[in-house]
């Protein structure tokens, strides 16, 4: 019995020692890798197999992404792209968890215009010199290159042009004798007509896009007041009565739409998922909704009626539209072991060949101006690119973005009044300016 106990004790101690060595081993391995990476950065060995960890949040476009990666690996056999997928609304959390855990992705899909958060964390590689030294690449994406710029340096490159537009059931519009609205007043008349007919709900936005409405309207109101740039920079104080409307009026308008019954879902108008909205539209339960340009192909395919698209109506002047967004793109981790390989992948994805592939297969609006476009709607999207305001109040701080994301929901559910929301957005903007 005693011998058995001793044997058990010896085995337990051995286990402790093994675990301890494993823990020490982990630390040693990390150090070795760091040393090795420093050597690699100094001496680029092309024949060496390079693995790049890539986070992709365009899971729905997997086939064309895999085809692009295969094409890249065909001409770069020594570079392996190890791809992980996550939903777009979890991309930031996944990326930051990996950064905090010390295992960042080498390359990631992200919105170039929202790179500030990663730049502040020293988590993004400065791509300025790589782009400046490649005139073909730079000239091809020139129009949207500034989207990924923070403090004069480029940290992300655009890949597909993407911004919010309004899709509508054109067949229904034609049968009701309606035309595309250009102003908010016309938009309200259209919604009233549709509601009065009683066949379908006039308008909706999915839960994550309810904040798009104030984001469309606020810059227009600021522009009308002659303070657009200051407003975007968060410098316009709503406590000054002459500026309060910039923050408050969009919410008054939305609340009125809700009270008039123009919004699909009634009491649940602010809690409709993206898929629900698409299903409701394709099943002719709602006549209009906002979505990004990149969804055009899928929306058109799912509907058995003609789908139309218009610029979300202007709240002030029909000649002045404000599109937020810009592009989906890529950035490279500051800690990437092989920056040349990662940059080569970014450049390849922006090449006319790959941009054309995505346009042909998925109807994705290209960012490379050297791509020939046939589809009239995609041509329209390219034309509307001139209205894009890539920098907006919304992206001043993550706190402000999150607040605005939830703001329409708070309004519709009665948790906040329009004045409270306007004041709280103003407070967050003031705080952002103070912090900066």
């Amino acid at each position, binding site marked *: 019995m005693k011998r058995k106990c001793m044997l058990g004790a010896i085995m337990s101690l051995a286990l402790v020692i093994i675990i301890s060595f494993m823990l020490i081993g982990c630390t040693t391995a990390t150090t070795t890798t760091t040393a090795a990476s420093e050597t690699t950065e100094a001496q680029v060995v092309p024949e060496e197999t390079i693995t790049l960890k890539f986070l992709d949040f365009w899971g729905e476009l997997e086939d064309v992404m895999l085809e692009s990666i295969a094409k890249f690996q065909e001409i770069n056999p020594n570079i392996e792209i190890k791809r992980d997928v996550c939903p777009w609304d979890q991309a930031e959390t996944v990326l930051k968890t990996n950064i905090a855990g010390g295992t960042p992705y080498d390359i990631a899909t992200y919105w170039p215009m929202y790179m500030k958060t990663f730049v502040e964390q020293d988590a993004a590689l400065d791509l300025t010199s790589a782009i400046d030294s490649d005139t073909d690449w730079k000239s091809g994406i020139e129009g949207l290159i500034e989207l990924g710029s923070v403090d004069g340096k480029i940290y992300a490159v655009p890949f597909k042009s993407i911004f919010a537009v309004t899709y509508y059931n054109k067949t229904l519009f034609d049968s009701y004798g309606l035309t595309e609205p250009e102003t908010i007043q016309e938009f309200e008349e259209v919604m009233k007509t549709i509601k009065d007919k009683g066949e379908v709900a006039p308008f909706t936005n999915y839960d994550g896009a309810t904040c798009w409405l104030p984001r469309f309207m606020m810059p227009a109101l600021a522009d009308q007041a002659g303070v657009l740039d200051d407003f975007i920079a968060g410098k316009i104080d709503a406590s000054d009565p002459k500026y309060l409307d910039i923050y408050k009026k969009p919410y008054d308008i939305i609340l009125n739409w809700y009270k008039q019954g123009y919004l699909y*879902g009634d009491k649940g108008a*602010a809690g*409709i998922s993206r898929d629900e909205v698409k299903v409701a539209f394709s099943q002719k339960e709602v006549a209009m909704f906002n979505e990004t340009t990149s969804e055009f192909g899928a929306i058109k395919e799912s509907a058995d009626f003609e789908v139309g698209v218009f610029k979300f109506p202007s709240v002030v002047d029909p000649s002045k539209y404000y599109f937020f967004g810009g592009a989906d793109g890529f950035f490279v981790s500051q800690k990437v072991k092989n920056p040349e390989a990662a940059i080569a992948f970014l450049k390849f994805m922006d090449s006319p060949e790959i941009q054309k592939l995505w346009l042909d297969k998925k109807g994705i609006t290209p960012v490379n101006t050297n791509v020939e476009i046939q589809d009239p709607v995609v041509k329209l999207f390219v034309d509307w690119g001139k209205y894009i305001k890539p920098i907006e109040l919304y992206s001043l701080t993550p706190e402000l973005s999150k607040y605005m994301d939830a703001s329409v929901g708070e309004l519709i559910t009665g948790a906040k009044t329009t004045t409270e929301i306007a004041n709280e957005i103003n407070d967050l903007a003031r705080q952002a300016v103070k912090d900066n």
Partner: protein
Amino acid sequence: MPGNKKDYLVSYSFLMPVILMILVIIFIPMVSSFLTSFTEWNGASKPQITGISNYIDILLKNKLFFKSLSNSLKLTLISSVLSVTIGYFLAEALITISRKRLSEFYRLVFFIPAMLPLAVVGILFKFIYNPTYGLLNNLLQLLHLNGLTHSWLGEANLAIYSIIAVNIWKTFGLNMIIFYAGLKAIPKELYEAASIDGAGKLKKMFFISIPLLRPVIELAIVISTILGLKTFDIVYVMTGGGPGRATITVPILIVENSFRYNKFGYGAAIGMVLFVVTLLIIYVIRKFIGTKEKIEF
């Protein structure tokens, strides 16, 4: 019984792997979180010590924290009470089934929800609750109860209760198994003696089962409370804290602050406050439900 130093050494050496695991997996991260909570840290650069400012902000200025705490407490209280109650009555019902196979079948069926990953349950119920093509609204329409159809996750006053219902469905199976094991351990003779004395089912339940199951009830409530207070997955998958902020819970607020705003110190401080709240609630539960008497059959 260990008598000398050598025996102690042998005993503790058996415990060493577990102690080491607990140190690495639980203790070190806890201490690390506690220390982080006194700093301002963006997850990448060097943390700056800020003292108790995170705690002051959370407790005195952050209205959203109290909203999320209120939701977490609501979810915990309702889920725990109903899940424990349903679990107990199901266990009582199962114990009376004399056919072993049938009893095993029901135990398995009721335990299945507890085995499913929370994220899967969330997605499943998102479909069931869907106002357009969801099972629930369609079922209500089929029964001509159109007035009862709702946007279950879209209406602010309903969303949290819709999530609570899912949480109860997910956890009652676990409580049922805990109570089933407890009831099985009670000697049959006690019930037989009570029957001879003329006790009915209710009297047996109130005077035999419940008093003897007090430690088991305490365990079930404590487990349900801990699970309820740290509920993240279901809420995140089903509503993401919305509509607006109607269903935000403390764990969602922690993740939001840490990973969206890069405020890891602030997120850790919220976590510490939740930890203290959890300890207080468990203390209250143990004080009022727990028993120091050793129950022997």
